[in-house]
């Protein structure tokens, strides 16, 4: 019963929050709502016994990602009201409701799956974090390492793109200008 109450409560909250994210014209509201929605989602993770995931959700999303977005917002000066020209609303609403209805229709039907064997069962008496660690560092070691590379890529990319290197475009400059620019750098 508690589970049901919790589910519906958080479901309502997340939906509401995310709805605000996509509809509000205040960027700050959107950001806040997104952060709140993320936290509510972590609640689901806790309900579902994925404690580690819930923690990660809060730390990574609400902590890191939201902070990044906040910086971004400040940078872009979007704290004011965002004016968006809207094209045909019917297309948007129509398409998304259709998509939702279609999938919901199917998901409302019970799955008849059999033959499902838990490959990496949650072991009784072992904490979620421990179990996750076990799987993560055996079976999913390679994806984990690759994820590290991915983060490295993202980091390098972020630095390259946001850094000073992109300020002057060599692509658009003539050879002579490039030389000039180089000399300037050496001199300074």
């Amino acid at each position, binding site marked *: 019963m508690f589970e049901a109450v919790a589910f519906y409560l958080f479901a309502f909250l997340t939906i509401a929050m995310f709805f605000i994210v996509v509809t509000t014209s205040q960027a700050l509201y959107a950001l806040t709502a997104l952060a709140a929605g993320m936290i509510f989602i972590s609640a689901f993770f806790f309900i579902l016994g994925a404690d580690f995931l819930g923690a990660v959700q809060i730390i990574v999303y609400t902590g890191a990602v939201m902070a990044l977005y906040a910086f971004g917002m400040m940078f872009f000066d979007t704290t004011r009201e965002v004016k968006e020209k809207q*094209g045909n609303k019917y*297309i*948007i609403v129509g*398409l*998304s409701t*259709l*998509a939702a209805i*279609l*999938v919901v*229709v*199917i998901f409302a039907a019970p799955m008849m799956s059999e033959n499902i064997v838990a490959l990496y069962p949650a072991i009784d008496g072992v904490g979620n974090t421990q179990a996750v660690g076990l799987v993560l560092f055996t079976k999913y070691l390679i994806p984990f390492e690759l994820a590290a590379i991915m983060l490295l890529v993202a980091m390098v990319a972020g630095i390259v793109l946001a850094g000073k290197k992109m300020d002057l475009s060599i692509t658009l400059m003539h050879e002579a200008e490039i030389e000039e620019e180089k000399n300037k750098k050496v001199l300074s």
Partner: protein
Amino acid sequence: MEKYLYIALFAPLVSSLFSSLFTATPKKLFTGIMASLLIFTSLVSSTILLMYILKGGEPIHVTMMTWMATGDLYIPFGFVVDQISVTMMMVVTLVSTVVHVYAIGYMDHDKGFNRFFAWLSAFVFSMMILVMSDNYAGLFIGWEGVGLCSWGLIGFWFHKESATWAANEAFIMNRIADLGMLIGLFLIYWNTGTLQYDGAFAAFHQLPTDTLTWIGVFLFIGAMGKSAQFPLHTWLADAMEGPTPVSALIHAATMVTAGVYLVIRSHELYSLIPHVGLFIASLGTFVALFAASMALVNRDMKRVIAYSTLSQLGYMFAAAGLGAYWVALFHLMAHAGFKALLFLGAGNVMHSMHDELDPFKMGGLKKVMKGTWIMMVVGSLALAGVIPFAGFFSKDTILEAAYSGNHMVIYGVLLFTAGLTAFYSFRLVALIFHGEERYKLFGIHPHEAYRFMLWAMSPLLLVAIGAGILQTPFFDMVEEALNAHEYHIAHGTALIMLVGTQMFVGLAILYAYKKYANSRVTVPDGTSKMENSFAYKLLINQYYIPYAYEEYLVKPYRELSEVFWQKVDLKIVDATVDGIAGIIYSTGEKTRVMQSGNLSTMLKWMVAGLVGLLSLAVIFGLAARYSDEILTFLSALGV
């Protein structure tokens, strides 16, 4: 003897090639002389061959080389000299020798002197192939070859629009007939397996009459074109645009008789299908009358002679159609002589009258041109069939043949036509040589032709006068080859017929003289009563047949061609192709707006794609899940 065969055949070719070397150079007299000599050589060889055949020699048959051989088809260049072909060879070489010599004088001042001889000799060569070939394909080579040379010679003065037009008309009309001939050849090949005369003739006896009829009809269509039989006759009169020697050689003596030759050559075929023969005879008779009627009023000297040629060709076909092949051949031979004579005489007149053709503008030329006058009169007498000139013997035999075959209508018409013939020929003579000297009105100073031209014409004069005596030896010669027989009519009847015919002819001549050989004759100006009568108009306009051809065949053809090009080819066929390409291109042009470049639109497209896939999935998934129910439902609906 083969040697002479080859000489007779190839001397004209050599002559032609020799002359053609000089086509681009100014006039060289020696080309004319050389050509005449070579043609004469051919004549001599032909004469030797004739002697050989007359002496009862076996027909000479040579096969020079293979022409075409594929599948079961085998066509060699084979030549045969038998009674029929040797007669034709004689006619061809004799007339052409005369014409060659004559042309040296006639074409004296012409720029294209050398070219003329090249064409003329080429014609002789083609004609020789035509008559000497031992198979239908070879005959067809000559057939087309003479057509080509006729085209070149009619259009010899190619700066004249009328000449080139006439040349093309002649060629195309002949082509129409050639198609018939070609089909005839195909029929012969697929039914007998060969195009050789002897092989084909032998096989004809085994064929059903239907097939033979078709063969006969198609071959005769070919003959109709070349011999200008109705309805393909209009080209012949127009062909008079060519130089007169050409008219004499091609359009009187030789080429136009090729059709007759074809029928005679295929007599073994036609004797198996008498109903076709009767048709030929009827058509010939009709043409005889039809052409003679047009000759009555025509005001163009050469055209009158041309119509008379047509008319005489009708006689020949009448004879051939009735099975009297030897008579046809004999008439062909005699006709070649006197008709060439007439043409050449007319050529002299033209020459002296500065190419004036209207006999009404002449008159009284007898004084100036005595030699020509004699020749023309003799030629006309022969044409009219007055005893004892050549025409009498040949034409009279045709009438006999018609009579003895009980074809009274044919007989009657031919007899009547004989009268017409006499009338129009002497109308011409009277207008040209007798009466007032009307030419003076036009400031012309006529003069007699070169003497050597007259001398050159003399062999023809001899033929015109004395060919009659050759009838018996000729009959003996061809008796076997053509399965000939004399026509025996009761003596009394024959005498009555003879006298009657001669009287009729004589009256016609007298009437012609009376009407045209007097001082009252003036140049018609289109005001006289006669000129406005319906009959006159009908005749002078050639029964409106050329007009009808122009209006109902040529023009529609031209317009249809234009429609095919402008409307069908460009607007339908091509436009369809371009249209397909255009549709593809414009679809691209129209739908490229999908690529608006706006990210939001792009994202919407993606979602739309997903939703599309999902809807398909749901529909399909539901259908799969409830397939049983759907099937029951459908079956309940009776699907």
